[in-house]
């Protein structure tokens, strides 16, 4: 489309006004999307006193990280004044194994389903894929019974299991679509060269999977870090992930409401995924579109 603007006659007398108008609208929307984050950051940097006097979008007069520190290790989360820190680490301990295991299994599935097709492989894939579409409310009750049965109720290990199981549909989808675009000749050549099933996977397929691996890791990381439903349903007290802790902190009814602390806590909870997004937004978008468009 872009090239049309350069064609003769496209730059009419009003074209320049059109461009200005266009940029104005686009920047206005940028402000709309940025405003909540900006307000959050600026509020989190205000002191309690300033918060009462100042207005919503005024910049903090003196930057104070007091609220951040308070949210991190002093704020009341539920009943204990521990701050978010322990829950932050809960989330880290939960996310890392969940992401790695589900990504590895997804890669292996994708490889098997595309390069070593067996009768029914497509049907099997459709069955796995279906799992990503169900409302998870359906599995909450049986899952909590199962976790109890396995002795994993209220543990981080239990949440890892849950996130691996329900992440597999996505990781399998990512890798299957990626490996479909890798020519079968590569596997044939390696077979003639004498490599076996796992040798081909580890020596050839995995080393060329970096792009989709990044997509899968970022997607899983974001999903699992941001999850609330499973965390709220299957964790208890001290084992809660950060989203649950944040919700408890914000909705805690004990003590005076400290909005600057709430905002600081929200930012702390959002920071890991925000950083990943800023650093690797390209892969994040690819995961979003791959994960949802090609159902």
């Amino acid at each position, binding site marked *: 489309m872009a090239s049309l603007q350069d064609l003769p006659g496209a730059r009419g007398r009003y074209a320049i006004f059109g461009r200005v108008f266009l940029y104005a609208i686009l920047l206005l929307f940028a402000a709309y999307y940025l405003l909540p984050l900006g307000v959050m950051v600026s509020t989190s940097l205000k002191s309690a006193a300033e918060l009462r006097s100042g207005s919503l979008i005024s910049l903090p007069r003196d930057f104070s990280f007091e609220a951040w520190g308070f949210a991190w290790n002093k704020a009341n989360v539920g009943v204990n004044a521990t701050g978010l820190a322990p829950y932050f680490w809960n989330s880290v301990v939960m996310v890392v194994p969940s992401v790695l295991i589900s990504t590895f299994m997804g890669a292996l599935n994708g490889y098997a389903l595309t390069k070593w097709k067996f009768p029914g492989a497509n049907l099997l894939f459709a069955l796995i894929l279906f799992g990503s579409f169900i409302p998870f409310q359906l599995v909450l009750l049986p899952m909590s019974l199962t976790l109890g049965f396995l002795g994993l109720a209220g543990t981080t290990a239990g949440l890892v299991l849950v996130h691996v199981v329900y992440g597999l549909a996505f990781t399998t989808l990512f890798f299957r679509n990626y490996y479909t675009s890798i*020519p079968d*000749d*590569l596997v*044939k*050549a*390696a*077979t*003639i*060269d*004498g*490599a076996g099933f796992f*040798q081909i996977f580890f*020596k*050839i397929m995995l*080393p*060329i999977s970096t792009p989709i691996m990044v997509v899968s890791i970022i997607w899983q990381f974001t999903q699992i870090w941001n999850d609330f439903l499973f965390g709220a349903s299957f964790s208890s007290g001290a084992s809660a992930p950060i989203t649950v802790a944040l919700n408890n902190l914000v909705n805690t009814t004990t003590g005076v409401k400290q909005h600057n602390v709430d905002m600081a806590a929200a930012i702390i909870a959002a920071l890991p995924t925000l950083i990943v997004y800023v650093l690797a937004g390209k892969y994040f978008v690819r995961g979003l579109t791959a994960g949802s468009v090609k159902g």
Partner: protein
Amino acid sequence: MATLTIKNVQKRYGTVAVLKGIDLELHDGEFLVLLGPSGCGKSTLLNMIAGLDTITDGAIEIDGRVINDIHPKDRDIAMVFQSYALYPNMSVARNIAFGLEMRGMNKPDREVAVKKVAALLQMEHLLDRKPAQLSGGQRQRVAMGRALVRDPKVFLFDEPLSNLDAKLRVDMRTEIKKLHQRLGTTIVYVTHDQIEAMTLATRIAIMKEGVVQQFAPPQEVYEQPANIYVASFIGSPAMNFIPAQIVSEADRIGVRIEGAQGASVLPLPAPSAAVLKKVGHDVILGVRPETIARYQHGTNLPPNFARFSAQVSVTEPTGADTLTYLALGGRDAIARVPPKEAPNAGEVAEFTVDMARACLFDPKTEQRVG
């Protein structure tokens, strides 16, 4: 180096027969080209030789050993793929050495082998690069190096040149031929390009719908095509097919065709018994474009040449020759004439045809007669 025997090999997917009984026998050091359009089964046959596809029925033997149930890596074959199938994550050297590595050869030996092959293909300077850093022609070389390094009994090529541009394709073709002449290995080569088939093969197997139409040396395929399909597949521009009738006139046997000024009879020198049986029947006369020439007035024609006149519809100069379209037997025939002798479009001119090099086909069975 080895012999390759393919005995009544069949391939069926469910009820669909892809290969309907292929019999081919290759001597040591032969260069077999499997030629045909896409979907004729040539790639399936190659994959079956490689061990990348199962054999429904029949047997494939290398050096007399049946290999039907032997794993590809134990068949002592190497394959060059159309897409080259280079491992993107490995350097050129490692790509070439990978097959040796998988067979447990130690590192110093592998390095020696890689160096030797790299020297043979003149690509020593490429060994440290990744496939993505190579041009199409260089990738092609690496793919061949990967096959060569293993020194297998049989080389398999799956349309190896079709991803290259026209100029490079000709160069690589010559290179493959040189390699074959130097190494004398047994090669099976799949292509849909008749020029590649003609230039490279010691024998060509032309396939159509899972059946070998003709299995013969290139020149024989060209001069004595088994049927209309083979005749039209080989040669560019294609052979002319002119509806005609075998007639007996005075003491001569000839074919009658409709020309510009009514019918003319082209005498057949030394007709075979099969042809004699067809007197009075319709046939298809097959004439290669280069066997038609402009008639020079006052020259004496050798006995196997026949004369006829026809109207010229279009001329297409190609530089070396001028392709001249003649109205013959109700359709266009093409003559390949030297530019100096080329007539003008619209002109009615006299031509000669070398009947010793003409073919006759049965219009119903499309098989060659005699």
